[in-house]
């Protein structure tokens, strides 16, 4: 019997604050002035963060690993019992802290960034709703509550990507995000239903305790994990459902930070880590995840090499980093995946907010070919951006090093080829990130007439905090190699069952690290020579390019392919059904039958005065007489 933990019931406050913020800023939209909406919204998320922190300590001091808080019975019919309940355990607490912590910083930053937008109140309402949905997602104690949040973040991303709704291209990007997510969601909901049919419940703890009875490779578990995976692929922007994420940068920059770092895309990783027990029973699915993750990591990194929009480079880097997280999941190293989620949340939020600061300073310009020399004009933004770049590139002792190295060493344990491919992707990442850094901050200013300036404090302070986290965040999980005790992984141990694997010997590990560091150093040097010493600027649009450059500049033509294979044919099919099937076959056939009847009717009309109401009364009377006639005779 589990003892109730005092005060743990307060967990409902965590999603309640942003919900309240959404309602207040949403309903009082017209009457809130100046920065009020931003302050309210930020305060709400900050309060959520504080409550999450308190919950963290409450759970720690209780000596228990988890607690379930049931609010009410949502759906309870027949054998189906789905409570609206939250699960507070080490995994959900980790995610809650990331979502509210990083989320709060993004909210605060937005007060400065969005200060002159006329719909700033709606913006904060939607940001709060986004945070609320994400909290439902990570706190739900069963798959269906998770699904509420899952679709909720889809809705909020739709709203925020299309925030500037006058622009048709943005609206298209918003719809694309929602529809691609929905394709994934269909797989996910079918997976949840199959879970219910198999286990007669959708509650995590009940499913996982029953799952032990299934053998490894049981077909039904494999099918369930694949269906859930489809959902994760959509939400976490993996191949083949990744093209919505780069387009999602149509929204205001803080939205990108929220989508890419704290919320939304991490949901797929979270869900698979949450379902680790099921995935451990499905080696086939794990192998699929490895392939998807690695392919996404490398292809997105390649595309990142040739992008010239500062946000687009970062967007593809997110897709690529998510690929690494998937790789970790596929290797059964779930806590390594979640650890990379954590460090990635720090440095990716920082990168996007830094990019926002740059765009803000450049008066809305996003093309890195027109930037340059910002190092001196915006030193704070530069140093924080540098920290994030070092972190994402995996340079020690920055946070990304620890999380990426963990994934790489797991890959090495699995197979050397996997390791080489993953390392290759990491080197590409390092190159395009330094390309970005050098083009934006080094050299001479290339845009004439611009007067870049450092951003206000409300924007730079979040940058500084995130920079500190990006630099030191890795120390949460120092491996035994560096005399650490892998705190983070151990903390997750009670909630996430990672696959056991043989530890590499320390000498092998040191060798791998030194080797990869040497290569990273070479890549940075090469990037420096190309973009700083030789001051090379990427080609203008329309200039001739080599075949390979053209291919990756155009993102492997995947968008064009989807348009040709799915979008256009869907339109044709719609026209075909309507013009040919409906209006040429079905409808005329029925009409023909109708006209025949009408001709008979017009003959009969000669007997009457042609009064429609009379017909109707005659009809009812006729029916009655007809029945009586038949029955009497």
């Amino acid at each position: 019997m589990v003892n109730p933990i005092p005060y743990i019931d307060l967990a409902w406050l965590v999603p309640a604050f942003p919900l309240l913020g959404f309602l207040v800023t949403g309903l009082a939209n017209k009457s809130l002035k100046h920065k009020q909406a931003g302050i309210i919204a930020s305060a709400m998320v900050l309060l959520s963060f504080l409550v999450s922190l308190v919950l963290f300590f409450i759970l720690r001091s209780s000596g228990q690993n988890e607690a379930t808080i049931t609010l009410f019975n949502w759906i309870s019919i027949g054998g189906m019992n789905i409570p609206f309940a939250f699960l507070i355990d080490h995994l959900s607490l980790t995610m809650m802290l990331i979502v509210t912590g990083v989320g709060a910083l993004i909210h605060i930053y937005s007060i400065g960034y969005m200060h002159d937008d006329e719909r700033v109140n709606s913006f904060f309402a939607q940001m709060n709703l986004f945070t609320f949905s994400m909290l439902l997602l990570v706190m739900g104690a069963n798959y269906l509550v998770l699904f509420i949040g899952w679709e909720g973040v889809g809705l909020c991303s739709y709203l925020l990507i299309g925030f500037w709704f006058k622009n048709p291209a943005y609206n298209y990007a918003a719809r694309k995000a929602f529809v691609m997510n929905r394709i994934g969601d269909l797989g996910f909901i079918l997976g949840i239903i199959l879970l219910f049919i198999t286990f007669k419940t959708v509650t995590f703890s009940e499913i996982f305790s029953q799952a032990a009875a299934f053998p490894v490779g049981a077909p039904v578990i494999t099918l369930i994990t694949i269906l859930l995976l489809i959902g994760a692929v959509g939400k976490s922007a993996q191949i083949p459902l990744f093209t919505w994420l780069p387009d999602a940068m149509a929204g205001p920059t803080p939205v990108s930070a929220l989508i890419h770092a704290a919320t939304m895309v991490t949901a797929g990783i979270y869900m698979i880590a949450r379902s680790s027990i099921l995935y451990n029973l499905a080696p086939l699915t794990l192998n699929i995840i490895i392939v998807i993750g690695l392919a996404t990591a490398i292809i997105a990194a390649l595309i990142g090499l040739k992008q010239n929009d500062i946000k687009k480079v970062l967007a593809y880097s997110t897709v690529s980093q998510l690929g690494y997280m998937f790789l970790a999941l596929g290797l059964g190293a779930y806590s390594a995946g979640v650890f990379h989620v954590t460090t990635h949340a720090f440095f990716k939020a920082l990168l996007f907010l830094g990019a926002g600061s740059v765009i803000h300073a450049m008066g809305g310009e996003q093309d890195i070919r027109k930037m340059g020399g910002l190092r001196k004009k915006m030193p704070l933004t530069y140093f924080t951006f540098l920290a994030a770049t070092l972190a994402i590139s995996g340079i020690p002792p920055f946070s990304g090093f620890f999380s990426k190295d963990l994934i790489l060493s797991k890959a090495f344990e699995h197979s050397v080829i996997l390791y080489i491919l993953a390392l290759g992707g990491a080197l590409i990442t390092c190159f395009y990130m330094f390309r970005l850094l050098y083009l934006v901050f080094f050299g001479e200013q290339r845009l004439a007439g611009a007067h870049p300036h450092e951003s206000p404090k409300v924007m730079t302070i979040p940058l500084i905090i995130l920079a500190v986290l990006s630099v030191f965040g890795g120390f949460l999980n120092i491996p035994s190699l560096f005399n650490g005790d892998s705190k983070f992984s151990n903390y997750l141990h009670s909630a996430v069952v990672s696959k056991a694997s043989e530890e590499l010997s320390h000498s092998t590990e040191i060798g791998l690290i030194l080797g990869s560091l040497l290569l990273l150093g070479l890549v940075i040097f090469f990037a420096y020579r190309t973009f700083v010493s030789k001051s090379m600027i990427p080609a203008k649009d329309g200039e001739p390019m080599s075949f390979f450059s053209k291919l990756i500049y155009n993102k492997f033509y995947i968008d064009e392919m989807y348009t040709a294979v799915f979008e256009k044919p869907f339109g044709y099919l719609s026209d075909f059904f309507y013009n040919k099937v409906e209006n040429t076959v079905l409808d005329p056939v029925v009409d023909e039958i109708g006209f025949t009847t009408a001709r008979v009717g017009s003959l009969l009309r000669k007997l009457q005065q042609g009064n429609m109401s009379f017909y109707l009364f005659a009809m009812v009377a006729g029916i009655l007489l007809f029945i009586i006639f038949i029955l009497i005779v």
Partner: protein
Amino acid sequence: MIVLVILLIPFIAGLLLLLNRNAAAVKLVALASAIVSLVATLSLVFTAQLSSYSVIWINFLEIKFALGYDGTSLIMLILTSLLFPFIIMAGMKREQQNVSLLYALILFTQSALTGVFLAQNAFLFYIFWELTLIPLYFILLLWGGEGRRNVTFKFFIYTLTGSLFLLFGIIYLYSLTPGVHTTDFSAFSNLNIPANTQIWLFWVLFIAFAIKMPVFPFHTWQPSTYTMAPTQGVMILAGVMTKMGIYGALRFLFPVIPLGVHYWQNTIIILSLIGVIYASVIAFRQTNLKTLIAFSSMAHVSLMVAAMFVLNYYAVQGLLFQVLSHGVTIVALFYIVMLIEEKAGTLELPKLGGIKLLAPNMAILFLLVVLGSIALPLTAGFVGEFLIITGLFQQSIWFAVFGGITMVLGAIYMLYAYQRVMLGEKRPGSGNITDLKRIDYIVLIPLITIILVLGIYPQPVFNLVEASVTTMQNLLVPVAEVIPALPL
């Protein structure tokens, strides 16, 4: 006795309206009548005792005027009485022709619909079934839009054809009853008709319901009728009439000819799923918003029909829940369609756009209804469709996949339509649009509240229908051993 009162309130109020010529007063009386009906219907929910009413009507035929209800009829009655106040309010503060006749006809329709759901024998059921058609016919013919003459005629012939089959079926069943013939539903369900007879009788009875719902390919009257119908007419058609088809099928087919149902089960499910996909795909490229929503409604109702023929516990729970949810959502949608037409003067999507700039509150409420329509969690639509897809999954994973595609396709066409109407730059057509008036809030806010409340706390509805769902799902279980389903 309450059931008789519920049946007569709208009828008597309708007669009174015919005597009055003051437009505003007529509308108020109609609304008052509808609200009284709603209260009376809700009183059925809270009284433990079942209300019924029965007198001998046509003596020598042993036909009784018998009214009563069970969980299924109760859901239908709640739907009817819940929607009619909104349907009436949809005409308030608006210029309309010939007001007293219009509202009398609306109330007559309500009365007839109530009769359908209360009738305890097939004869009475059939009379009311036909009676719904007459006032509605005039509403469409006199207040309809472009091409109303031809379209109404088509609608009329279409449904009448179905009714004739139904009539034949009822008479046939009547002739089969042992001893003194009767048309009581209870007698019909004890007939034990031979399997071979049930197999052909199925189509005789089903056709009328299939046309009303409508099931592919008997739907071709629907898009044109919805498009030309006046707002209040289309609300009645889409909100309540479609459910009348579902109700009829539940009453006539499953208890009376379970073997026939079982035999055709997969055929109908597949036809319905074809309807789901077909209508959703067509909706995508419609240029008229009302036609688009007509096809979307067909897609949603087709999914409900598929659920009905799966007839397992979750499917039927989902179906009956969706009856309410779809009714409320579609009425809200058509209300917004009316607003757009009023304000912009057109429903052609290429001419619309940027309305959100001028009417931000309308844009928000429209979005909420759209979200309900595409079954986002925490709206009523999600609960219903989740249960329906669960039920389909128990029958076959492919049924669930094809039924579930509606989630994706619905998002595609609804958000596309929303974008084309509301977002983007201002169009010349949306020149002098104003935001919502008070009456619009009075209609839309409660409807949206119902959509959200049912999505967050659906339990009361489940409890209401629990008993009749259990009865119904037991109908097909023993049958499966008697006769194999039509092989596919």
